[in-house]
């Protein structure tokens, strides 16, 4: 059960982080990113990734949990990139 939660957190975190960059915000919303919004997205994004790390480590321990988290970062990163490119 931890895995879908962690995966969701990583994915949401990645989307927020990508939207905190002007280039990708414009891709999605077609206007310039306000600075305060960028800050919020960044905080949200990093908290998503860190919460996911916590979930992985709590459920699987440091060794396997860290690996699970890194694996999710790689796989879901690829999906985020493709989503942004072919949205």
């Amino acid at each position: 059960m931890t895995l879908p939660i962690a995966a969701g957190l990583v994915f949401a975190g990645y989307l927020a982080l990508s939207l905190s960059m002007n280039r990708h915000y414009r891709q999605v919303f077609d206007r310039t990113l306000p600075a305060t919004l960028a800050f919020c997205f960044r905080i949200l994004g990093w908290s998503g990734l860190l919460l996911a790390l916590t979930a992985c480590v709590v459920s699987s321990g440091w060794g396997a949990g860290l690996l699970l988290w890194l694996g999710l970062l790689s796989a879901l990163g690829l999906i985020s990139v493709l989503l942004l490119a072919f949205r």
Partner: protein
Amino acid sequence: MSKGAPGLRETAPKKRPQGGFRQAMAWLHTWAGLALGWLLFLIFLTGTAGYFDTEIDRWMQPELPPAQTHLNASNTADLLLRRLATDAPGAERWFLRLPDDRNQPYPGIFWQGASVEAGARAARGSLTLNGETGDMFQARDTGGGQLLYQLHWRLHYLTRTQADVIVGFATLFMLVALISGVIIHKKIFKDFFTFRPRKGQRSWLDAHNVLSVLALPFHLMITYSGLVFMAFSYMPLVVAAHYGFGDDARSQFFAEAFDPPGIEEAANETAPLVALDPLIAKAEKAWGSGRVRNIDIRHPGDRNARILLYESTNTSVSRTAGLMVFDGVSGELLHRVAPELSTSRGVRDLFVGLHEGLFAGPWLRWLYFISGLMGTGMIATGLLLWAVKRRQRAEKATGVENPGLRLVEKLNVGTLVGLPVAIAAYFWANRLLPAGLEARAAWEMHSLFITWAAMLLYGTLRPTKRAWVEQLTVAALAFALLPLLNALTTDRHLGASLSEGDLILAGFDMVMLAMGIAWAAAAWYLHCRWSPVPADQNATRSWVKPFAPARSAK
């Protein structure tokens, strides 16, 4: 590598690295990557397949039942011991494998130094047995997923030493390419999510960057730990400094570093072997039920017999496990070795464990597999980028065609598509070679290399673009038709395995089908992009193109 189009010219061929650390690193990255790229592609691709080695084993021996990990350890050990007593009397060593997880799905035995006069099958041998009946499995001879994954460090036709030297060298260059790649990539975070499709060279560079950066922890881990495997071959002087030179010194080091404690020479006095049940019970009490993986009996039937019980390695990332050494006659526990002996041994076991991923459950295993594919894709896009960049330049210059560029293009199509096709051919050979063929397993692997050679040759005979489309089509058919071939040649077709809930066989068929579809999509995309458009039929072009034309740049 992401410097924008003008900056990329800094790595022009035949140009010495001139000024600037970053330029020197770009030069190093380009040429180290190119020189060993195809070999590294083979290493990454077959190594990635290795994360599903026992699953591939299963598909390649469809006669076998599902994994027998549910069996009781004591019963299985008794069964194996009886088999060893009849098949390998008088042996110096009996080894019992108990099925504990996906890494060891069936019971098995292995023996050394048995006496043929006393009725042994052979002086040494190994068998996989059906844990339900105690009989030998009747299955086709195959190299299976094991031989396929061993390809990534044994290179099959070479000796161990030759392969070690070549693979070690390639691994070292992989590490160099990774580190220099990080140095020359100025905008790791800024370009983290950036992939701009349909922009030629720019798109290849984006793809290369994305595949490299997103799985960078995996790439670094797998490359560095790959070197750790070969530390003893590559840094023999560290051992020599303490143990001296020569084979004897090396054997002494390996014995001290890796041999279990408390082993004695045979006394040549017979004494009955103690029953295994109480020893297994003792070990299971310490480690948990079903966690005895291997039982190693030295000098069975001798007064100095020793029985070693090894714990499963599947709970911790590090490839360490507990060990108990018992007296083989009295059953007394002589030594209990904790998983970690020393820091350096612990670090080695951690890296080896990380590399092999034997501990990984299904989800983590898939993530390992995806990361491995991303590494394979990183190498492939790097090689393609080299060629695309120079092809664009050559077309602009309209000069004579560069033979080096042509060679790289031919090797690219013949390897980046040809090798996957060759791996599919390995699976086809498994189903099509006659069951009684002499050296059948070897011929499966020959089929892989013959197919690869044929694909390389085919690439040189066709215009490069035609070769890409045609070979991608071959790849699509080779993978997508594997489930059909399986259905025609065995009774374990996809419908049967799905209805029986046999996820391993069904999973293999479905992954092959998915890969076939992916290859077909690539073939179709390139076919549409590159098909010549007659001047008077421009209007019909839009329906041929499966993808919308490039969006306006932002």
